[in-house]
């Protein structure tokens, strides 16, 4: 069975509670701040508009991994990447190369906030928006 990747197919149901963002920040990045989350929920034009999720789309042979000079980011079978923070040199090339521009580069810490396809956010979605599926 190939690895699954994060999907946000139910965005019409999203209530913008940010529980997914807070889960990623809390569990993966050890931060209280929803900015430090690899999933970002945004409105498309204020709260009267529809909501969108900025998420890693799980590229096969991901460009962010290809461009990484220190093997901190490696391709993951089934799509997406693995990230080894200790090997990261903080060059920000991954953030620049991301096809859908969803890698947030933390200038303070000189490290990317990048999705590792762990699915933690899915477990905290209360409204059937997020799922892990085979690509």
């Amino acid at each position: 069975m190939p690895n699954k990747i994060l999907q946000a197919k139910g965005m019409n149901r999203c209530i913008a509670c940010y529980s997914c963002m807070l889960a990623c920040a809390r569990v993966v990045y050890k931060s209280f701040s929803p900015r430090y989350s690899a999933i970002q929920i945004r409105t498309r034009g204020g709260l009267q508009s529809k909501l969108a999720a900025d998420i890693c789309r799980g590229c096969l042979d991901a460009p962010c991994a290809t461009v990484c000079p220190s093997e901190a980011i490696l391709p993951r079978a089934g799509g997406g990447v693995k990230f080894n923070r200790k090997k990261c040199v903080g060059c920000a090339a991954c953030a620049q190369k991301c096809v859908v521009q969803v890698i947030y580069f933390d200038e303070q810490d000189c490290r990317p906030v990048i999705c590792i396809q762990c699915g933690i956010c899915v477990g905290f979605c209360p409204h059937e928006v997020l799922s892990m599926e085979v690509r």
Partner: protein
Amino acid sequence: MLSNRPARVLLIDLERKEIIIEQREDLNDWLGGVGFATCLFKEYLLPEEDAFHPSQPVVLAIGPMATIYPLVTKAVAMFKSPLTGELGESYAGLRLAMSMRFAGYDAIVIRGRAAAPVYLTVTPRQVHFNDARGLWGLSTEESGHILRQLSPGSGHRSTLRIGSAGEKQVAFAGVVVDTYRHFGRLGLGAVFGSKNLKALVIHGDLNIPIENSAKYSRIYEKIYRQAVETDIMEKYHGLGTTGNVEPLNALGALPVRNFQASSYPEAVNLSGETFARETLIRKLSCSGCPIGCIHIGLLRRQFALGHEHEYESVAVAYDHELVYALGTMLGLTDHRHVYALIEKVEQLGLDAISAGVALAWATEAQEQALIGRQELQVELSFGQMAPYLTALDNIISQPTAFYQALARGTWFAAKQYGGSQFACTLGKNEVAGYHTGYANIIGQAFGARHSHLDNAGYAIDQEVQNNTAAAAPEEIVERIVREEEMRNALNCLIICLFARKIYQLPVVAEALSALGLSWTEEELLSLGQKIYREKMALKKAMGFRPEEITIPERFLETSAMQQRLSPEVLESLRRRMVEKLAAL
């Protein structure tokens, strides 16, 4: 990072266009939220000066758990109320608490009056004073669109703005927070207007690292699972607060046509079930709350009459208090008419409860010939929506002396024109959508901000209904005060009060401990008591005299939960409460 650090307070002077950031270790004894707000308000308040004096402060504050725990989503605003002339205190959700938390401010104090209209952009790194002349006069919706385009930080910011009601300093103008929430009550919008402050955008993207990850995550998840996997919060997510309309109607506790009745058959047309079935299109949450209690309905409306297929649509948030004030109080029987009034009130930036109660009083005053067509410029009639739209515009444009008076609130207008006996206000504030009995009346009459949310007297009435011992006057007064003290403790955090069953004090103490903050249950309760006393003292300094509180006869004329209220019992409760406050 949260433990043992001093509170960070941003002081903004609109007149001098200056800011100061203070580290206030002394505030830590007050925990946060309403505790911080009370201290800072006391520090900067000019108690004897008018609410619109340029130096009067507006204080915004959040608590130590804001956004960090589920359902801890509110910010408090404290100000001198132009409606009551004393304590203004209001709460709002959506993204404000989160934005303040990650902008790095526990409290913001705004003073002074800008020379010309401004809007402020607050970020972790800067505060900008921006020219708002082009926004002045725009609706809350249009202002919101422009501010979103001009400001940084989509998804991590909060946009507070006023409409023309605030600009014209209507005493019950509110502040719209992120389109669907409000600092609605007691006139904060008018105070913004008096300061030439059109809007405030706060952008927060700071990283705050978690210190004790294992303990914090365990407690977070426990609270989160309780919120989403038990029935505790279901009623707020399901039908939302309008789920109250039918049950209150069945109890005979739903104010109808200016409290002339407490139930009516047409309530079914304005019930939560009707709104959901006919119009509900989505739900939204405040940031960090997995419940989604904000119910949004679709108003579809024909325009360009004579052309058959021209429609516009508006997405409007509805809640029990709006359906009461702009629906049942005005005798409306069609949910689409309620939506039209909600939309109007939103665009103008009026408080919905005060606006609806004011219109209900005006309708009856016109029926009784206390005011005439010349003063009103329109014929108001319970059940007729369109004239109310005109009257709402008139509250802003104030074409006659009558509307100038009404713009100062129902209590003031009734003093001028008569009809105080059916002006549904307590402590000069228009009342909320319940007619449950004594505790509801006494709770709003003597609560610190004359709000049903001070002490939830309406809930006490329902609890004591069949319990003679609990219904004794001294017991009712004690329960009201105890509840208000408890709510002051919770409002230091500031949890959403819908979640008060989840955040019992032991849970609060445990949650705080994971952040390195040591508070026992007793200390929390004692802090709630201290804040209650401080707020009451501030009210007295601003001129509040409990013994002068009067209760409109209308509340006694109309049965509450199927019983006629006794003037003697009400009087004994009133006396008891006056004594209690004198002894504080």
